């Protein structure tokens, strides 16, 4: 079992793998107009020129929906000048969610995004088949036991289930995942001790457990 390896992007001298899994924040970086979108876009084009296929999961789509929902709630709460009841032991956003319905707006904005992703998938993105929950659960739990946050553990489990170990992400949490290769543009990752030049080879979760 080896530590994660981080590759700084974009970098034309990289050796591009056959597949790279898209973490939610890599899509959000572009679709939600964030700081490193140009670096992510350049990398995705460079990788496509080198015959990499990007893959994603339904878990990524669900996370995008949650992100959009929270963002709309926050904007609407600010717009309406909502004052939370300090006598209720509940975060302001949750209190606001109890009294408003932003669902239709969430769905409209989310569906627009999904339509963009789905309409372009023919030869650019590939959606992974769903893993049976009974097979995925033990893998997720193994990653959670190793200290990986549950949502990241699910992404890691989906990748491991499909035989993949390359991810495009901006999330430092993935450096806890053994035998993974991380492609990232942000200093939070590219300034870590995990930066390397030789990618890890894929190992199954069972191999990872045996060598722990």
């Amino acid at each position: 079992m080896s530590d994660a390896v981080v590759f700084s992007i974009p970098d034309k001298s990289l050796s591009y793998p056959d597949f790279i899994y898209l973490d939610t924040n890599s899509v959000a970086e572009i679709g939600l107009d964030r700081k490193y979108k140009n670096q992510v876009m350049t990398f995705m084009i460079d990788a496509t020129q080198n015959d990499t296929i990007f893959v994603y999961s339904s878990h990524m789509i669900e996370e995008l929906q949650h992100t959009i929902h929270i963002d709309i709630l926050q904007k609407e709460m600010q717009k309406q000048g909502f004052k939370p009841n300090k006598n209720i032991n509940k975060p302001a956003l949750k209190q606001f969610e109890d009294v408003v319905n932003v669902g239709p707006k969430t769905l409209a904005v989310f569906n627009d995004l999904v339509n963009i992703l789905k309409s372009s998938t023919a030869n650019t993105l590939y959606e992974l088949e769903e893993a049976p929950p009974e097979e995925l659960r033990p893998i997720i739990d193994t990653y959670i036991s190793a200290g990986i946050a549950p949502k990241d553990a699910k992404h890691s489990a989906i990748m491991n289930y499909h035989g993949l170990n390359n991810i495009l992400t901006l999330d430092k949490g993935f450096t806890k995942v053994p035998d993974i290769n991380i492609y990232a543009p942000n200093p939070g990752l590219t300034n870590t001790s995990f930066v390397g030049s030789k990618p890890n080879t894929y190992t199954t979760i069972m191999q990872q457990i045996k060598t722990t």
Partner: protein
Amino acid sequence: MNNTLARLSKLKDERNKILQSTSKEQRVKSMESLLNNLDEYGKKNYPFLLDNWKGEDK
């Protein structure tokens, strides 16, 4: 392990199909189109950076 290898093999078949049925230029053009659409979507819906989901240094 055998099941994982079978799944990966299926994925590789799908990749080969894509690579054989489209030219590199077509794939790059599709990717550029997807990214431009995402970029336009972002500018329309998110004209400022979110506070609740910072891409950097989570």
